[in-house]
């Protein structure tokens, strides 16, 4: 039992005052009696004390109990069983930055969480969780409620999309495995279903939003150095929205144009022949709920030719690539590749060969051996026909696949990671994979040598793949939460968008703490490389109807239903009953039969 208003219990100190009426010498009640002859010897001796003899009749204890009950009721006692093993999961995804009035959803979640924690008993143990970059515990050790509130204030939302997990199942799994008696999930998702142990508090209301979903700065083609920018703005509302799109370079305004976008539609803006700047920024002036997706960053692709490192036991076939403008080719044998250090290249082509592990650059695998880190190799095919292809896809543009008939091929098995771009009846012929901001492509056929117009479908495919790799060198930048497309070397550090300088603990690591949108700079003190990181999850921008958290009411291992009952009404009833009992027992003067009545003249009539 506990008291919701413990300050009222100080009033118990006033209980001794109840003795005062019993200590004060009261003038005795004067009553007539027929004759005092038989009572004289019972006369009491008068005391000189100002107070009377402390005579505590049973009614005093009844009154004491009555007062104690009333004071206890003032203290608002409550009988409660409150869970002591509690988990608090905070949704810190990008959509929690949406504002609700003057506060963001995440601030509302913090306030709600503080209320929940304050209501817990002092000996409760709390585990704090956040959902991005993944559902994980904030601290290793469980916290006391007060510690959890302090830790709560140090948390903030990240510019990350939520992981594609089934929250209902995941949270109930947590409850089962960690034996939580109660798990509170504070999010902007609505709750579906019920659960004894999982409670979902939904913060925020659906609201329209305008978001830049794509921003890319690229060279017009592999051969042309001019830059062009494309910005896609999507309207996540049911009304047409007007906005002004500002295009900035290195923080300074370059262009600004008005646009309008229909409901649930996207509008694409293109800026051609833009001047070269270290980085670019697109911004719309929509005063909507989520400010994060109103800005997006991009860095231009590297200037100059596409540097290719070709590793092949048959270098003569690859040397035909030199005929393509804007391509610089370096040919090495597989043995030389294993031994040497060839520095950074924009693209590494492994022709009939494969490295032990995926390289830290874009890579093309052409008919790799069975021991390769990307795909499994299937059966050999002679002049396979193409039965399907991804469309639209940069790799399949402008190709007449009816004429696409490589002389020899091997079917590939992507193994779950990559996606098949070109399919034959016996299996994929081209498998693409984007991982850690690097693009990998495995081909089950040999597109080399580059024959130009003599083999037009394959030549177009070769140009497409070079273009695809070239696009992957920058321009649109990476998504938040994904590692930067470069390994940190000794002496290099990362300057985050918020100005924080992060030095790697060890060299040759990938910086993956890209939790904020903006420009990241890898610098060694003299030179710096810029990386644009943007919110990469459109679902975070859609603030209208986020998917519900489906709870399945699976009983937890330590399921304990919280119980709360306020006792003060019962105490008041008991006090009332005692009051009635006291009224009944106490010989109040009004109800008392007079022992004697004053003698009046009128009474002296006999009949």
């Amino acid at each position, binding site marked *: 039992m506990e008291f919701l208003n413990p300050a009222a219990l100080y009033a118990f100190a006033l209980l001794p005052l109840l003795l005062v009426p019993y200590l004060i010498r*009261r*003038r*005795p*009640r*004067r*009553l*007539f*009696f*027929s*004759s*005092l*002859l*038989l*009572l*004289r010897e*019972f*006369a*009491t001796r*008068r005391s000189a004390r100002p107070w*009377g003899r402390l*005579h505590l*009749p049973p009614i005093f204890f009844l009154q004491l109990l009555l007062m104690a009950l009333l004071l206890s009721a003032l203290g608002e006692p409550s009988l409660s069983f409150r869970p002591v093993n509690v988990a608090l999961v905070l949704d810190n995804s990008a959509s929690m930055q949406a504002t609700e009035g003057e506060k963001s959803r995440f601030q509302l979640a913090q306030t709600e969480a503080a209320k929940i924690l304050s209501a817990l008993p002092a000996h409760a143990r709390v585990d704090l969780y956040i959902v991005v970059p993944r559902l994980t515990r904030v601290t290793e050790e469980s916290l006391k409620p007060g510690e959890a509130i302090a830790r709560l204030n140090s948390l903030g939302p990240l510019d990350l999309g939520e992981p594609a997990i089934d929250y209902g199942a995941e949270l109930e799994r947590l409850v089962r495995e960690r034996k939580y008696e109660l798990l509170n999930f504070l999010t902007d998702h609505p709750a579906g279903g019920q659960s004894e142990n999982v409670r979902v508090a939904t913060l925020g209301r659906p609201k329209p939003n305008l978001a830049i979903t794509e921003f890319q700065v690229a060279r017009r083609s592999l051969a042309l150095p001019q830059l062009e920018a494309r910005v896609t703005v999507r309207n996540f509302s049911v009304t047409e929205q007007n906005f002004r799109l500002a295009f900035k370079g290195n923080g300074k305004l370059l262009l600004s144009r008005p646009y309008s976008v229909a409901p649930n539609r996207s509008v694409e803006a293109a800026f051609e022949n833009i001047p070269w700047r270290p980085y670019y920024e697109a911004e719309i002036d929509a005063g909507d709920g989520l400010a994060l997706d109103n800005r997006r960053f991009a860095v231009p692709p590297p200037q100059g030719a596409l540097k290719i490192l070709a590793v092949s036991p048959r270098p003569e076939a690859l040397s035909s690539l030199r005929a393509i403008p804007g391509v610089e080719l370096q040919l090495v044998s597989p043995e030389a590749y294993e031994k040497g250090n060839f520095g950074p290249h924009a693209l590494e082509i492994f022709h009939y060969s494969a490295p032990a592990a995926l390289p830290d650059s874009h890579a093309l695998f052409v008919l790799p051996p069975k021991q390769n880190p990307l795909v499994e190799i299937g059966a050999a095919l002679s002049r396979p026909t193409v039965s399907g292809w991804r469309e639209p896809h940069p790799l399949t543009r402008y190709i007449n696949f009816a004429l696409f008939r490589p002389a020899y091929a091997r079917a590939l098995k992507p193994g779950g990671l990559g996606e098949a771009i070109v399919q034959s009846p016996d299996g994929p012929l081209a498998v693409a994979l984007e991982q850690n901001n690097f693009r990998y492509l495995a081909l089950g056929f040999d597109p080399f040598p580059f024959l130009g117009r003599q083999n037009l479908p394959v030549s177009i495919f070769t140009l497409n793949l070079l273009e695809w790799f070239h696009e992957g060198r920058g321009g649109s930048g990476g998504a938040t939460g994904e590692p930067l497309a470069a390994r940190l070397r000794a002496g290099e550090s990362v300057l985050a968008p918020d100005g924080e300088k992060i030095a790697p603990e060890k060299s040759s690591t990938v910086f993956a703490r890209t939790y904020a949108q903006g420009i990241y700079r890898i610098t060694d003190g003299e030179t710096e490389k810029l990386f644009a990181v943007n919110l990469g999850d459109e679902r975070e921008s859609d603030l209208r109807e986020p998917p519900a958290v489906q709870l399945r009411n699976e009983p937890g291992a330590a399921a304990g239903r919280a119980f709360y009952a306020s006792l003060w009404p019962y105490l008041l009833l008991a006090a009332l009953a005692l009051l009635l009992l006291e009224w009944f027992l106490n*010989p109040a003067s009004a109800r*008392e*039969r*007079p*022992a*004697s*009545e004053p*003698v009046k*003249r009128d*009474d*002296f*009539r*006999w*009949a």
Partner: protein
Amino acid sequence: MDRSCVECYYFLVAVMLPAPFTAEFLNRLEVLRLRTRKDVLGNRPGAYSSPRRGTSLEFADYRKYSPGDDLRYVDWGIFARSDRLYVRLFHEEVDLFAYIFIDASASMAFPSIKEKFAPACNLAVALSYVVLANHDHVRLHSLKDENAAASPFYRGRQRMRDLIHFVSSVAPAGALEPAPCLGNHLKHIRRPGKAILISDFLVSADAYQRGLNLLRAFNLDISVIQVLSREEIEPALPRGELGLIDSENFSELRLEWSETLRREYQEKLVRHNRELKSFCHQNGIHYSFYPTDGDLGRFVLKTLPATGLFR
């Protein structure tokens, strides 16, 4: 008085008298007669034995014949045996003079007149009616302070109205000193008879003994009826410190009333009553106890005959 007149009289008296005096109750009182332990001196023929010789059927003594004696009373048997003339003497039977003393002190108004004094007066009226119904004399005396309020002698049922009027005029007040008060009344009593004292006897033993001895000195056949209210027998005083005021002398007594004290008071009251009863028994005084919340009819018709006040 023929029967129809008697019934009419019963009706009228019943209308005048308080509730216990129903026609049936009065009819039953008719058959009662006071019993005396001593000879009385009446002035008319009656039903009570007198110390004087008279013409009753009850033999009293012999004396030598004197010339002029009625020859009907000569005992011829003795003359035959002893050749001497003796005359038989008989007791004289006279009417009764009853004196009913009602304690009219203030204590008789406790807890209220209706609860103590009125029942005592009812009792006195019932006793008076028994006397009047037997064509004897009754006189009521109110014992209060030293004032000697006494009614004239009443005789015959037709004096009930006057008797009731006298009783109604008595109001309890003041303190009572039995001996002086009785002394004042006894100054006016010429004939010995039956004295019935109705009182609560809440006075010291010495005081009531002196009063009763005074009655004894007047050669009265004494009966004592002690009346106490239920409040006096079982006081229901509030617990705690009390200032009790004596209803007669208004003196105040502070005491801490409790259950224990109540029991001690009751024990003391029992001792007091037992002492009074013992004194009465030792001195040939008839004693009865009447709690005023009791049934008057039962007390008069059952209890008093059983204890020997009536015959």
